[in-house]
């Protein structure tokens, strides 16, 4: 092979590499946007829950005013969670605190039958169940997008593009439900 042939092969290889790199980079950009979008949805659903909590606390206070410690714990946990604008790992930690205190609050209803029978409380509880479902759904979509991004950040050859373009792995977001809804009742 003469010099011009070798040059041609090198040029073609370079073009292929550049094109591959560009395609891979664009896919990273798209995946990163998907992760951000999915996180924004998680955030929206979390805020929906923050908005529900004051009403829930006030309703419970009407029947169990002397359970001050539990009510204050929920309010504190809510303030901490709503004020946390950190990365998903940090938010997961404050959300866990909120979930624990919410479970304690809902457990109060078992000790106060009047509260349990209250229509407004039942309605708020239903809304909370729906919100929890929405949070878990948004969380699962977010984590699936994170997994896809992280897989490419770790795997060859896309990890080379990720290293060059400084694309980092994203953090998973793991929280439990404060109140659980099961599958739809069986038809037969």
């Amino acid at each position: 092979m003469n010099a011009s042939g070798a040059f041609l092969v090198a040029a073609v290889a370079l073009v292929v590499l550049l094109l591959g790199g560009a395609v891979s980079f664009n896919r990273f950009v798209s995946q990163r946007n998907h992760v951000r979008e999915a996180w924004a949805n998680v955030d929206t659903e979390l805020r929906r829950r923050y908005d529900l909590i004051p009403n829930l606390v006030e309703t419970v206070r009407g029947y169990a005013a002397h359970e001050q410690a539990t009510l204050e714990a929920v309010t504190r946990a809510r303030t901490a969670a709503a004020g946390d604008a950190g990365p998903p790992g940090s938010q997961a930690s404050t959300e866990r605190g909120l979930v624990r205190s919410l479970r304690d609050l809902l457990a109060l209803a078992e000790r106060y039958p009047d509260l349990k029978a209250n229509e407004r409380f039942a309605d708020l509880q239903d809304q909370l169940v729906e919100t929890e479902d929405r949070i878990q759904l948004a969380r699962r979509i977010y984590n699936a997008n994170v997994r896809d991004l992280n897989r490419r950040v770790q795997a060859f050859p896309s990890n080379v593009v990720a290293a060059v373009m400084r694309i980092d792995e994203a953090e998973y977001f793991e929280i439990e439900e404060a109140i659980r809804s099961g599958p739809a009742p069986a038809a037969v």
Partner: protein
Amino acid sequence: MNWLDLIGALPWRVGKPDSEANPPSLEVIGLVGLLMVGVLAWDTAPYVLISIALAEALVIGFIVTSAVRRVKRHRRDEEHVERIAERAGLRRAQPGEFNLYALPFPIFRAGEWQGFDHVWVGEWGDDKVWVFDFWNGYELRGQDVEDHFTCAAIELRHADCPKLSVTRENPWSRTWGHLGWRDIEVESDDFNRRFDVSGDDERFAFAFLAPSMIDWLQRTPKQFEFAVEGPWLLCRSRWLPTARWWDLLRMIRDFRGRMPKTIPRLFPDTVRPLAPGGDPSGVPGDRRARPERPREQSQNASGSVQGVRPA
């Protein structure tokens, strides 16, 4: 057993499944051939005629015996279906009660001709359930090829779901996935390896494929595939003998039972669909108006509807 049953069960009438109309079988051609030889050999030695008569008697005996066995098997199958249907709260659909083309799934549009048969209907709580045999056919290198399925569909009363299909991964879909045309992937790698999930709405796919649903789908036999669209849940399999209809009914019941509660809340029914009977094409604004199709339909004696080849 009456003579009409028996004639109906002769080899050129009975196929498996019933919807296939078989051409005259080898037995019939053999019988006609032997008769012709008998006529031609009228002048030959008697032992030849006796041999031919014996052979003809044997063939006739074989045909009649097989027809009787077929009738009996058909009766047994019918009784079996009746028992299953009674247990599952189903009844035979009335003529015109079921319109295959109202179902939104692409499988019912595939092929050059389609048809359905053995339609059963029932109500499970708020939901309406349909079970039926279905086939679609196409011409391949001058030969008619038909694919037969047995399907169960549930019409939900309070949900309007985007399109979602859960089928088994095959080498073809896996290759496409490796090339970048990925299906929807949930959090379970094992599930993603075994199933090909496609649909219009990723959010719906995740909502529907909740962990308990994922876990259950992984335990289902390979022959069953699932789809959701609008208010419809569909479970389909390659053609099943009636003895195995109960498996299909159990599948669709469990599929429905594991549907997350959150689905009707997140994807509520906005437009009430028509039941798949009657002709919805005249209803203004109906989103599942039946498209004009260049096909004919006929109704058989049992009230089920059979599609036929276009002329």
